[in-house]
């Protein structure tokens, strides 16, 4: 086709830009390729290459005595993940991630529900920004703010004293597995910080899924004789499950990979993230660190497979 055109077209002097433009027009695949080459090179070479390289490192051997890595392939690192000590780290992180997800959903739901059903126009916009701002606000500063809040003589203590909640807090902190000597060194404190930091990631997907509920559906339920409570339990809550599931992807995977918050607040004891960080840094065992990164990947993959059944991907 191109040839016929060239034969019959009047010979015009065309600028190089026009000729290039014409070439891209005639070869749309060339055009898309030219657009895609830079991002593909960057992501393929730098990012995917690094990831595969990391996985490969997981098979290398680390010599405990000489503290050196040799490229002899072994499955020992992956086997070591099941050591009681390492398994403990995984269990601790996983429990926290699940607890944070559940608590976030409980705290987020009323906010999302109020946003979706009882606000319009400016109030809705206000709520939206009011949730977006803490979401984007500096992560490290939010964590830092909580160290200030929970510190001895800090804001939290002042409130507890003035509200007379001292005995209650003492009782909570004495519960094994939750408590600790002070709020800032307890599991409870760490849990609160996690819930705070990831809460906006839960609010927005729930709000979006509630926003999509057609009002006619709620009218229909009321029309069929359901009390507001029944409508809520039978219609609204089940239909917001995909939103909750979508939000929990964020709360779950973000908690799972975090190592800054566990370092700042809560009792000693490794999280997956801090384990990886310590293995590659202080210990210098890159192969073990690499093997450890497989844990969150597998856990997240399993989690995604579960929430996919709840319709989470349609609510993202």
């Amino acid at each position, binding site marked *: *086709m*191109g040839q*016929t*055109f*060239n*034969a*019959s*077209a009047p010979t015009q002097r065309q600028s190089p830009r026009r000729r290039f*433009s*014409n070439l891209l*027009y*005639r070869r749309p695949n060339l055009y898309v390729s030219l657009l895609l080459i830079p991002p593909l090179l960057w992501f393929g070479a730098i990012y995917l290459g690094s990831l595969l390289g990391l996985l490969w490192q997981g098979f290398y051997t680390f010599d405990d005595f000489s503290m050196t890595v040799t490229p002899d392939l072994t499955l020992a690192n992956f086997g070591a993940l099941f050591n009681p000590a390492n398994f403990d780290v995984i269990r601790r992180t996983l429990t926290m991630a699940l607890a944070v997800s559940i608590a976030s959903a409980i705290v987020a739901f009323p906010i999302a529900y109020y946003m979706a059903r009882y606000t319009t126009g400016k109030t809705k916009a206000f709520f939206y920004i009011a949730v977006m701002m803490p979401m984007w606000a500096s992560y490290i500063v939010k964590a830092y703010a909580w160290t200030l809040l929970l510190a001895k003589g800090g804001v939290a203590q002042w409130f507890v004293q003035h509200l007379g909640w001292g005995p209650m807090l003492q009782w909570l902190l004495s519960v094994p597995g939750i408590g600790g000597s002070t709020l800032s060194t307890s599991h409870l404190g760490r849990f609160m910080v996690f819930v705070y930091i990831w809460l906006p990631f839960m609010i927005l997907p729930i709000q979006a899924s509630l926003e999509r509920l057609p009002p006619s559906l709620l009218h229909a339920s009321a029309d069929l004789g359901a009390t507001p409570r029944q409508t809520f339990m039978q219609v609204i809550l089940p239909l917001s499950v995909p939103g909750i599931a979508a939000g929990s992807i964020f709360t779950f995977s973000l908690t799972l990979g975090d190592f800054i918050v566990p370092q700042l607040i809560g009792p000693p004891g490794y999280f997956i993230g801090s384990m990886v960080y310590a293995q590659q840094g202080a210990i210098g065992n890159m192969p073990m660190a690499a093997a450890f990164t497989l844990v969150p990947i597998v856990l997240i993959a399993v989690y995604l497979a579960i929430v996919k059944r709840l319709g989470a991907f349609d609510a993202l």
Partner: protein
Amino acid sequence: MTHAVQFSQVSRLFGEVKAVDRVSIDIEDGEFFSMLGPSGSGKTTCLRLIAGFEQPSAGSIRIHGQEAAGLPPYQRDVNTVFQDYALFPHMNVQDNVAYGLKVKGVGKAERIKRADEALSMVALEGYGARKPVQLSGGQRQRVALARALVNRPRVLLLDEPLGALDLKLREQMQSELKKLQRQLGITFIFVTHDQTEALSMSDRVAVFNRGRIEQVDTPRNLYMKPATTFVAEFVGTSNVVRGELAHALSGNPDAFSIRPEHIRFAEGVGASHEVQVSGVLHDIQYQGSATRYEVKLDNGQTLTVSQANDQWLDTGARYQPGQRLTACWAREAMIVLRDAPAEAH
């Protein structure tokens, strides 16, 4: 005389789907040509092939004698009025209209003068400083028209430009477009799914169905002499009679079409030179200027009959549902359909 646009055996495939299937058309210079068909019939793809937004998978397209394959839209002497108008939202009306001149390197003074001329041609003088969002649907449509005409194309493509307007405005624009086309003397190629629109404006109409052309003809011929069942049923309303009954009523052909308004009722027996068939009146719909009757024939087929309410003295219904009637029509009013046997597959 060269043709404005010439398709020879043009196909356009999207994957496995044949959007346009071996279409050949010759569009004369200076004619108002419509492409009519249901959505997905290939008419819009044909328009996009002329504009250069699509490339043919096979066949050749010539625009004023020049092979168009490989020629990008910006080097074709055709301009388009888009279905959604596609006005540039960040430019005011004048800049929108002058855009075609700007990218061709026309000087600023000249551009503004010609843009204002084009705007006055569509009765929008003084609207130049407005943004597209500040205009009504009808005004946007006119801006789109002015923008496409400012380059003085030899062929203007219109992709369902009136679809978004309400009925009154649409009828007004139909006559204005027709007037404009005569005044400019350029070729208009008009895509529509509205048969009334196509019939009332066009010199010739191509009827599309499933990527193929069923018939290209004048509006009168399309209505009076539809070549295929599809055309008979898509353009106006038709009774298509097939099989034994068709054979019995019309002699040899397998199928024929008869328009509802060409049928009359006779109580008892009709005139001897007419085709006659009897049935039971099933349903009556009063439609103002006409009344429509559904008659169930003895073989089970339903015949639609339309009778003009042209007697002002006409009171009440002349026929009652359940009544037995004879429907008759002139032998010449039956149109033999050529594609009837093919309908089987």
